[in-house]
């Protein structure tokens, strides 16, 4: 199961009323949202959302039925047990970034709305504060950096300098290859927030 599906399932199962709902589902051949809501004493919309989520996860099936001319759904269980596993190694981006993203040329973007704070020793960046929005809606987002990330950003080319590949910056900064994933992570985040600009090398 991919991480997003697992997260959705986890969210469904963590509801206070989830166990009671499953008890109803296993007891009834099929049940509507209003029937379940009245049995559990919760709002019909809350019940409906949970049933829809379980249906999208292929734990329930739904069937459209009519009461007079009014259509509604009845839900029934299609599984007798739930088990899932998540492969965390797939989250590691080292393999993917080893070739293409390390060749990406980057530099600080012009007029980036960011403030770089240096460490006490002034030889690495300890945090980046990024301003987002305008006027009253303006907000700050602060990234506290790991030491390798801070060393890397300390050597990030200035806005008027020639862009340099991530590999070259890592070499200049003396950052170990084991830190590639966290470097790529912060670079991608700062690209999305318009602090760093990139071009393919």
């Amino acid at each position: 199961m991919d991480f997003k599906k697992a997260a959705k399932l986890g969210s469904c199962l963590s509801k206070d009323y989830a166990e009671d709902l499953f008890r109803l589902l296993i007891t009834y051949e099929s049940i509507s949202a209003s029937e379940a809501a009245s049995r559990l004493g919760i709002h019909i919309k809350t019940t409906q959302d949970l049933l829809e989520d379980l249906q999208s996860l292929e734990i329930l099936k739904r069937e459209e039925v009519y009461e007079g001319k009014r259509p509604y759904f009845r839900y029934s269980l299609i599984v007798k047990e739930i088990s899932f596993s998540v492969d965390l190694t797939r989250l590691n981006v080292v393999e993917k970034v080893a070739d293409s993203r390390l060749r990406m040329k980057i530099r600080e973007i012009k007029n980036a709305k960011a403030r770089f704070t240096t460490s006490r020793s002034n030889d690495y960046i300890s945090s980046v504060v990024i301003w987002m929005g305008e006027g009253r809606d303006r907000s700050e987002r602060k990234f506290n950096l790991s030491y390798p990330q801070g060393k890397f950003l300390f050597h990030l080319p200035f806005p008027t300098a020639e862009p340099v590949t991530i590999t070259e910056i890592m070499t200049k900064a003396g950052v170990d290859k084991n830190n590639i994933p966290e470097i790529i992570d912060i670079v991608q985040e700062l690209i999305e927030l318009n602090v760093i600009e990139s071009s393919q090398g």
Partner: protein
Amino acid sequence: MYFSRKQRHEFSITGFIPAITCIVLYALAVIFVGPKAGIAVAGVFFILYSGFSIWIFSRTGNLSYIAAALFQFFFGLFFLTHPKLSVIWSVDSKISALILLMCVASTIWLFYLFFKKRAKWKGREVFELASVSTEPQPDGFTDRPRPAGRTDYTRSELSSFAKFMRSHLIAMPYFENERIVFVPVKMDDSFSYLFSPEKFRQKRSWIAFDFHGNITVNISKIDYLGYKEELSFDLLCENMGILFIRFMEYYRKGEADRILYELDEVGLGLTS
């Protein structure tokens, strides 16, 4: 070599404040008490100011402040003790003549140092030299420091280089555990530096030499806005680093005079 000016011309009356204060006090004393009282007030002011000059010498090690202190002290003493001018206590005319001689001698020394630019705070020259061959390129400013390279030196060489830079008013050193940070001070910023060096450095440009040979440059927004145009910020920081590395190399080779020569060659005025 001809240098086109890249910094804005700034006029500040900070340097004239002591002279203006002295004139005002003298005038007030003359108006409310009499001419001799005016001279006595000026004399006391000069002597007190010589103490201030010695304090600046203790902070910078710059000889011109000793010359200024002697000049102020002897002039003050002359005003206070001259048989015809004094209202406090007068001395023998021969002693007064000797004091006058000392006044003249210290004045000549002070003028010599002044015209040789030994009394000049050279921050503006430093920024001019860093901007040579830097072309305009807008929107390049960032408040990050920039690694500016490496050079070789020992800890003791760095310390003596720092003393040299301080005593010639090129850049004021701040001694830290792992490095020495140099802050160039312009003529009109000298009082801000002297009265509050820690506060002064917070918003100013600096060049740091750590004890492993790494040089880092940070050009502040205040100093960057001091240029008439938006210069290529990256190149400006790089040039600043190269300039200080060159100064260090001159110093290590025993050619420190070349640093002063290079700064004088910029050709800025004696009070700018």
